[in-house]
């Protein structure tokens, strides 16, 4: 399980690095130091496609894979979930602190300045 997760990461990193759709063979070549079997790479790409994070298109006889979105946009999506801004504060995950208003932040900043004095 863990190893598969590792591979998925590595494959995504390759796809994100190159700015073009890649075939299974090309991905395998980019990861040659891992010495992966062709079918392994294919399985990993297939899993990623099922998760919806890579898109594939047929070109001639081979499939070409590219990331469905950039790494940054996935990070943003996660942060968006985390900060409870999807408009749907749900129990899916629990953020340490949710968004707060300007006034509140100001009140906290003042409290922080008071406590912080001995530290600095």
């Amino acid at each position, binding site marked *: 399980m863990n190893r598969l997760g590792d591979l998925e990461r590595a494959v995504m990193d390759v796809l994100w690095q190159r700015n073009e759709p890649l075939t299974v063979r090309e991905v395998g070549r980019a990861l040659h130091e891992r010495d992966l079997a062709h079918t392994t790479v294919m399985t990993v790409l297939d899993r990623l496609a099922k998760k919806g994070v890579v898109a594939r298109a047929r070109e001639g006889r081979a499939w070409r894979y590219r990331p469905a979105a950039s790494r940054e946009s996935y990070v943003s999506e996660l942060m968006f979930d985390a900060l409870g801004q999807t408009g749907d504060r749900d129990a899916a995950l629990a953020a340490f602190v949710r968004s707060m208003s300007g006034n509140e932040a100001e009140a*906290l900043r003042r409290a922080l300045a008071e406590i912080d004095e001995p530290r600095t």
Partner: protein
Amino acid sequence: MVSAALLSAIAVGCLVAAARLRRASWPVRGPYVAVIAWQALGLAWGVSTIGALLAFGLAPYQQGVFGGLVALFQDASAHGLSLTGLSKTPFGATQVGSLILGFALTLLLFYGLAVSFVHVVHTRRRHHDLLGLVAREDPDVPGARILDHPAAAAYCLPGVLRSQVVISAGALEVLDRSELDAVIAHEHAHLRQRHDLVLLPFSSLKRAFPRVAIVETYYSAVALLIEMCADDQARRERSAKELAMALLRFGTVRAAPIPAGALAANTDDPEVVRRVSRLLHPMEELSRPEAAAVLLSALVLMATTLSLWHLPL
């Protein structure tokens, strides 16, 4: 009719009690007990409201709600869906309406719970998949994964086998070592005690009754109490001051712009302030007799409500 009247009284009583509980000052001193009180009130409200509707509708059978339901189905199947038991009474039509309302409310509540559950599972799976691809591990921060983003965030992703605590790079920047440990302890408390499951019924209630202000308010009240439970847990492992400092730092840094706008969501939200002041000026914990009194009332409430479902009057 008596049981219908009593169940209605309980349903109204639950709403009154919930309104008072929300304004009460003791929940802050015993968040765990308060969460149980909320659960009992919510459950009793649902059971008594549905019970009142059904008891009124099934009164002609004179067998209570459970017995009445059995009688109703026997009646319906024996007479080809024409209800002889109900057609003879003066309120026949109202009673059928009451039954339909009772069944509809039951369905709505269960539907809300199911949809919420599916939604949560789906969101978590997607979140978990993406975390696996973009979050990294850092030997300096054991027990958490790191997300490279400048905004400050710390959260946990609950799950049976693959729960995770996630800290953003922005959070690492504003927290010092001990504060970070306090935050991680807080998040692990959420995961260990499965706070997400406690919150789930309330979030599904919110889904079943969207845009109903009361439901929304109660949901946030319970959510805040749950945060306090985790705060208490973290305070036991680390120090209250470290945790309060972490909250303050998050709060003050968060006012900076966050990705993709939409910051102005929740304006009137003194939650963090309340948590911080609670940590910095600790109050006396709820005493044992007080806690026992609350728990006992919750138990009596549930037992009474359920036994009224059997009352054949």
